[in-house]
């Protein structure tokens, strides 16, 4: 089946509502990801408010330590993701060790102990795919350093559903395999070192954020 339902039909076919800024940034990281992640978080401006969802491969005994560690590196709120809690702006949600992190259409988070995917739980594919189905073109997915190919298939779904894909430049990554696999499979065009990823995220999100938060004062439409 194609998306070509638009050809001249006498009946109106609903088109998706146009919405403002991005709904979420989903980040996948594995071995060597902490360094890249730190650079990104420290490069994001304080007024960057789009929620961030992170699937980082962790040892099952982590028990929230990774999230604690991250929160020391950034002024952003960092929390271990909780099942069925609504996603808030300005917050980074970390998939807890041994759980997959998913997104529900009502804007809440969901955890699951479904079987490992690519030997991983949390799996980046699971996060990317589920976020892509909820946010579609309003999702930015970022794949960072890692020695696995988790995230590549998820990235493909993100792109298919109109989202933006960004990969850490393999030559900058401690472990290039993971970003390279995603670039190859999903044909990611935006390939950057971590500090430039932060800049790119701001460029993509901040203007839309401003437009959304100040429409009334400026007479609404532009």
């Amino acid at each position, binding site marked *: 089946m194609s998306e070509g339902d638009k050809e001249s039909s006498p009946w109106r076919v609903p088109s998706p509502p146009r919405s403002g800024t991005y709904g979420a940034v989903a980040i996948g990281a594995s071995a060597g990801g902490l360094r890249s992640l730190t650079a990104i978080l420290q490069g994001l401006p304080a007024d960057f408010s789009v929620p961030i969802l992170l699937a980082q491969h962790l040892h099952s005994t982590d028990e929230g330590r990774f999230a604690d560690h991250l929160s020391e590196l950034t002024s952003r709120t960092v929390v271990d993701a909780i099942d069925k809690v609504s996603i808030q702006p300005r917050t980074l949600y970390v998939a807890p060790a041994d759980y997959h992190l998913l997104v529900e259409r009502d804007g809440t988070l*969901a955890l699951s102990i479904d079987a490992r995917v690519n030997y991983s739980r949390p799996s980046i594919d699971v996060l990317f795919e589920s976020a892509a189905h909820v946010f579609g073109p309003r999702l930015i997915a970022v794949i960072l350093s890692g020695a696995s190919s988790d995230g590549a298939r998820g990235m493909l779904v993100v792109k298919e559903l109109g989202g933006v894909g960004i990969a850490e430049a393999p030559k900058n990554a401690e472990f290039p395999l993971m970003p390279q696999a995603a670039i190859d499979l999903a044909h990611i065009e935006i390939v950057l070192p971590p500090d430039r990823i932060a800049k790119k995220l701001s460029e993509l999100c901040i203007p839309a954020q401003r437009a959304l938060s100040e429409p009334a004062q400026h007479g609404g439409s532009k």
Partner: protein
Amino acid sequence: MNRAEREHIEIDLLLEAVFRRYGYDFRSYARASIERRTRVFQHTSGCATIAEMIPKVLYDEGFFSQLAQTLSVTVTEMFRDPFFYLSFRENVVPLLKTWPHFKVWHAGCATGEEVYSLAIVLKEEGLLERATLYATDFNDRSLSIAKEGIYDLDSLRKATESYQLAGGKKSFSLYYHAQYDAAAMDAELKKRLTFSNHNLASDHVFGDMQLILCRNVLIYFNRELQNRALGLFTESLVHGGFLCLGSKEELQFSSVRDEYVKLDPKAKIYKRTATP
């Protein structure tokens, strides 16, 4: 309309078909997980769209039973979250020791690993003889594996570390008998155990229990179905009895939260308040 929106409709219709044709209600399950598993099943079954699965579900019982097997997550392991068992020994066992006999309902027991883990803890604490354990699940295939109690030897060996972290006092291999690649759980662990089919979405209360375990099941339900299940547990649990949930599950947002006090916020062990 984009692909994601259309798929959402297709999955609604598929779950409706499953419910009306077979009575299994997955409509109240946490949706994101159900969608993921439906898509996985769609790919393995070779259907081009999810809609294509609908007539198959309606006309082919074998197809339905494979789908239901995928939708009910059978994943489990021995001594998952060792800290839970440690806390159980510390916070629950002393009170169980004051009862001459007690009944345990283990809901959503899957293929049984968790029930045998609990039986081992009870045995080591000298409580197994005083306990009657009712382990239930809505998946008959899982239940029959649980009843047999035969597991892959490799996975049992891997559980040895968890057993020790869970406060295990012996050599874990004492509890199973290995033969080739498989191992059978010790018959003594099974003596106090009964397995039966119970569906938390449609069946009723289970009787006066002193202890109820339901771990990593509610996480798959939406709030409404969670409240139904928690209502069943509360009705089935004596005042002063214990309720143990999975480590990412909470009573905080539920309709029964005022009925319980939290004994261990990390291990998610709750005690039903003593007086009505």
